[in-house]
């Protein structure tokens, strides 16, 4: 071994020591979290990692993802050469040549990927420093971080090409071959033993610096992203908020008020952030200039984790330097979230920023009773009259009488329970939708009944505001009533009820086949039980977050619209749909900061010049209706999908409007 080789060995050992010390620290940080990482069904998890990780399908949902795809795979390909170079640095003359055709293939790929990665880096640089889309605008530290990485990789690739130019390797290497004459003409000769050694050193040193730098930078995701995909928490995915155990013995704290109260998966989450900003770009709160950015939430938690952990690792009871709330996540950040889940959908590594916020909300509400006064009014109303407006519980089924719809108390022998929801029961505007649904079901001969005054709010808003206690009481009460009648199938006219009954009621022993009214209506059309006549109107459909993104119901409402008119898509549609602003209990709070989310969405709707706007959610209906009015376009008719269908099926308007 040469002196140079020895020096390299020392560097390699040192770099790895630093690297692994940091990784070990991060693992210990994550282990400060609660519970264990979910690990059931390893084969499914492996598949996830292969498809979403190695296949990069989540990253590739955006065009910019192509660059990442190239860098990602370039990294693996180039690592092959890097390894060879490192070993050759210690044992001069070493090579992987013995691998024969594979060696040839890898050399070929390296040559190609070198160029592709350089191209991707150029684009990355351009996007960060010239074009600067909002989602990539970051603090100076984060920008420098990104720059360092780009420069390191660029230097690495330059050194690589230089080495290959001087010392060709077998393979189909057009890039190197093209560069060689130019190199020779510049340097005047082809053989550069000293030059080769220099580039070889440069390459090795840069590689080792990179190794050290990774776990300290945003490129930590190189290490944590794939595990994060592997350990995805199926209980949390798609916006489901698991039931908190409020009766656990000795439990003194509920929700998240300290970073270590998060689950290990939550903590792994925050270390996996790539700072890509896709979540932020999708976030309606951020878009309307509120202080919330899901990316900053994740990064804030990450920084907080690393800052608090050294002390906590020494002493689990150490007092935090900063309070999670309000120092790390401040009030206006916490409450701006509409729980639209756009951030979670957008994230290429399946980080769940929204559920981090819900945990803190739970602590604020359950431990401190601290939340917006207006929302307190709504929840108090829910407590007494089981609806947020405080209207009499007894009047809940009043809409149904004129249509001859029976309650389960009157006749429980029906196929479907029509779970109407608060808005459908009390909001005069949405009661028309309720009646349209009821009339369509009658028309199609579906046997159904309602709970009437026995129906309670499902507690969606309470739950997402963080009032787990109230939400659990409501859920249990509903489940008990429904099970009491032996309910098997449920149709609801509210995506929020739908999501709660379908995804959260099972926690309370309520297992039903749940469909949204648009799903049932689409099915009835397909079965020929409803025969709509197509009309001429161009309809624009606004996807409800809780129906679409949360539960993947995109096609049923569209099918119903297509049967009654022509459909026009918005720019942000389906899983990319932009929130109306009402979710997460925001329906019950004033929106004082920044622009109005519903007005932004209404502007997008107005832009595509619809003849009719269709929604499938009572909150969306209020929000879009208000938004259209604010934009002085109250003339555009706004209807629920069921109303469109009722018209197309020739159901008498009077039935729907007055229910008489």
């Amino acid at each position: 071994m040469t002196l140079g080789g020895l020096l390299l060995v020392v560097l390699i050992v040192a770099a790895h020591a630093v690297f692994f010390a940091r990784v070990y620290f991060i693992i210990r940080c994550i282990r400060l979290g609660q519970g264990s990482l979910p690990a059931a069904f390893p084969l499914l998890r492996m598949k996830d990692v292969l498809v979403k990780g190695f296949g990069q399908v989540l990253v590739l949902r955006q065009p910019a993802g192509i660059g990442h795809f190239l860098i990602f795979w370039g990294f693996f390909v180039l690592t092959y050469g890097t390894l060879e170079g490192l070993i050759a640095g210690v044992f001069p003359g070493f090579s992987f040549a013995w691998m024969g055709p594979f060696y040839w293939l890898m050399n070929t790929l390296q040559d190609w990927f070198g160029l592709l990665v350089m191209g991707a880096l150029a684009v990355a640089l351009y996007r960060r420093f010239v074009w600067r889309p909002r989602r990539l605008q970051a603090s100076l530290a984060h920008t420098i971080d990104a720059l360092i990485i780009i420069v390191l990789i660029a230097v690495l690739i330059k050194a690589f090409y230089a080495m290959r130019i001087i010392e060709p390797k077998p393979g189909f290497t057009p890039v190197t071959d093209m560069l060689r004459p130019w190199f020779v003409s510049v340097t005047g000769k082809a053989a550069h033993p000293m030059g080769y050694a220099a580039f070889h050193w440069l390459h090795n040193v840069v590689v080792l610096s990179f190794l050290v730098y990774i776990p300290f930078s945003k490129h930590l995701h190189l290490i944590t992203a794939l595990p994060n995909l592997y350990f995805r928490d199926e209980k949390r995915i798609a916006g489901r908020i698991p039931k908190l155990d409020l009766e656990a013995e000795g439990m003194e704290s509920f929700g998240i008020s300290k970073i270590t109260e998060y689950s290990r998966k939550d903590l792994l989450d925050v270390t996996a952030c790539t700072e890509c900003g896709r979540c932020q770009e999708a976030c309606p709160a951020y878009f309307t200039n509120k202080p919330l950015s899901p990316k900053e939430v994740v990064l804030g938690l990450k920084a907080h984790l690393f800052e608090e952990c050294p002390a906590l690792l020494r002493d689990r009871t150490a007092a935090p330097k900063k309070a999670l709330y309000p120092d790390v996540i401040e009030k206006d950040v916490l409450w701006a979230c509409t729980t639209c889940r756009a951030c979670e959908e957008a994230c290429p590594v399946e980080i769940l920023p929204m559920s981090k916020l819900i945990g803190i909300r739970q602590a604020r509400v359950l431990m401190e009773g601290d939340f917006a006064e207006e929302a307190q009014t709504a929840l108090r109303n829910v407590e007494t009259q089981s609806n947020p407006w405080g209207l009499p519980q007894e009047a809940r089924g009043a809409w149904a009488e004129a249509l001859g719809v029976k309650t389960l108390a009157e006749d429980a022998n029906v196929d479907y329970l029509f779970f109407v929801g608060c808005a459908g029961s009390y909001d005069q505007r949405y009661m028309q939708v309720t009646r349209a649904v009821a009339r369509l079901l009658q028309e199609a001969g579906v046997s159904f009944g309602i709970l009437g005054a026995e129906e309670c709010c499902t507690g969606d808003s309470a739950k997402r505001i963080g009032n787990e206690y109230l939400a659990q009481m409501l859920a249990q009460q509903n489940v008990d009533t429904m099970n009491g009648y032996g309910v098997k199938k449920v149709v609801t006219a509210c995506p929020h009820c739908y999501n709660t009954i379908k995804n959260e009621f099972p926690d309370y022993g309520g297992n039903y086949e749940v469909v949204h009214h648009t799903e049932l209506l689409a099915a009835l059309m397909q079965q020929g039980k409803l025969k709509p006549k197509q009309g001429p109107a161009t309809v624009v459909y606004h996807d409800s977050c809780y129906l679409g993104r949360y539960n993947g119901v995109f096609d049923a409402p569209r099918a119903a619209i297509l049967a009654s008119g022509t459909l026009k898509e918005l720019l942000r549609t389906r899983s990319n749909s932009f929130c109306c602003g009402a979710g997460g209990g925001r329906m019950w709070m004033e929106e004082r900061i920044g622009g109005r989310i519903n007005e932004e969405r209404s502007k997008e709707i107005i832009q595509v010049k619809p003849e009719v706007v269709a929604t499938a959610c009572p909150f969306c209906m209020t929000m879009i209706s208000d938004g259209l009015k604010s934009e002085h376009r109250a003339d555009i008719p706004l209807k629920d999908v069921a109303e469109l269908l009722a018209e197309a099926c020739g159901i008498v308007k009077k039935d729907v409007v007055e229910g008489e």
Partner: protein
Amino acid sequence: MKIAVLVKRVPDTASVFKIAVDGKSVETANLKYVMSPYDEHAVEEAIKLKEKNGGEVIIVSVGPSEAKEIIRSGLAMGADSGLLITGAEALSPRGLAKVLAAALKTLAPDVIFAGKQAVDDDAAQVPERVAELLDMPHASVITRFECLGASVVVDREIEGGQYTLELPLPALLTTQKGINTPRYPTLPNIMKAKKKEIREMSVGELGLASEALAAGCTVEAFTLPRQERLRKVLEGESIQKVQELVRILRETEKVL
């Protein structure tokens, strides 16, 4: 400092009221019960005072045993203990006040808070009577409260203005809406409230003479002014509609 709060279990006034068959009570089956809203302000003010000056808050109520739930909600807001006096359903405000006064005498509080009225019988007199019976200075419908140690300063509402009053302790005060925002109970406090003591006693135990408690007035009939909104759209020329409206508001509805 010992602080007592008088609270009452009442039906939520958003409920749909129906007259029972006897014609002089309401059907209770579908009613939702709550702490009378003005009492919530009284509890809040009491707890704020305790947080500032220390001491204990005792929630006192006369009612059926279900009223314990309402006392619990006061305990969940942060009060320390409760006292429920049962068996007094048939009393008029006059008798009720005597019962409360007798019970409070044994507690000897420094401050008593109560809501300005309970929104069931809307009698609007029990706290004042209690204070008189205990010979305590008192002030009603207060919108601000400040404790100066041996005395308290309050703003008391009058039509189109307010009095600022100073009362020596012990004193009784009845609260009006604007005085504070009742806190939203926290889960640990709800849990703790389940374990806090609620003493239950019957009227008999207070040893009051039954003649002194006998109700001197009774309800003969209940009527419902209105079940639902009338939804009556007035017809005619503008001026006729306006005149008709004013006539109705004055003569039929008596709100002008």
